[in-house]
């Protein structure tokens, strides 16, 4: 079973994402900010991180940079999932190393399609 770490400060978003991901046969873990997510990745690397941008403590971009610099040998795919829906943000995220980008609000089709594109469905 593939694992997905859902990183979002909104409990509702985490719940919705979890529900969809479980129907797509993912094992789901959750984190509420970048710092927690980094710790979770270091403990056990997931196949993919679904990553919010705006979060307290450590935001999505800072998490992504920390992940790239962490020296972890096995790195997860990173799919941003955010309300930042402009081309500028998308470009910045991809340049920082994200693999895919989901614009909120998302539904099952969107998540399935994006996970398919990164080769996980």
């Amino acid at each position: 079973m593939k694992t997905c770490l859902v990183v979002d400060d909104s409990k509702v978003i985490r719940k919705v994402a979890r529900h969809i991901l479980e129907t797509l046969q993912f094992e789901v873990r959750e984190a509420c900010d970048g710092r927690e997510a980094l710790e979770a990745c270091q403990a056990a690397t997931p196949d993919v991180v679904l990553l919010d941008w705006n979060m307290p403590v450590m935001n999505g971009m800072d998490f992504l940079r920390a992940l790239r610099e962490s020296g972890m040998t096995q790195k997860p795919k990173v799919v941003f999932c955010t309300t930042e829906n402009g081309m500028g943000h998308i470009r910045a995220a991809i340049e920082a190393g994200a693999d895919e980008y989901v614009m909120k609000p998302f539904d099952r089709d969107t998540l399935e399609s994006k996970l398919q594109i990164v080769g996980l469905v």
Partner: protein
Amino acid sequence: MKMEPISTGGAAVSSIAFSVLTALLEARTGQQLASYRSWRVDTALKPLIRERGLDTLDQLVAQLLDGNDAAIGDRIVDALVNQETSFFRDGPIFDQALEVLAACERRRPRVWSAGCSTGQEPLSLAMAIADRSAGGLPPVDIIATDVSDAAIQRAKSGKFTQFEVQRGLPIRQLMKWFDGGDASEWFAKPELVRMIQWRRHNLVAEAALSGGFDLILCRNVMLYLSPATRVAVYAGLAKALKPGGVLVLGAGETVIGQSDALEPSRRWRGFYERVA
């Protein structure tokens, strides 16, 4: 006159209204309403009924029969026809389609996307072609057609919703080939949209396009047609191909038993070739 209600899964639709709509759809597109399994006629037409300030489907059908409004038939057909599509639908077929084009002897291969809906299929092919050839857009002629004028107009506008650009389209393709994002609207770049000639065309009621196509995509269109209509449309598509030209159908569609002029391709898995 007594109208017998028949159930369409929701509110009752009078059988006369239902027959009128069935006849309209079949006459315009060759599609059979009866073959839609869980199709809900009234759900599909509710927005149009409301837009016209009407209360019931019977009133809408009465307006259609009035004949005073030429556009209403088109609007009804557009609402009843399944136009579902997405970018890079059944992804691997696009890679193989590029191989077909690369193997073409012709300097400027000709492609027809028949039943292209709102344009995602030919736009995906155009992006794939442009990405494959370094240094500018390659010389491939793509003609994209659909029976629905509304679908063709939308395709031509290049405008897509946030939902649509997130189905099948890799984010790097979005960055490269689209502008916008404000107000959740995205626009395919004009040079991409202009790689395609857009035209309204009815596969059932009109002769197939001529021009010796190297490749025809006609995906997820035939499945709604009656068997007899399908045979006729396949014959037309075969004629539109150059000898040895390739036809691509949707997943789960086949020409087998419906055409002598088309056979499963030995070279291109899942595709068909004109043999006669």
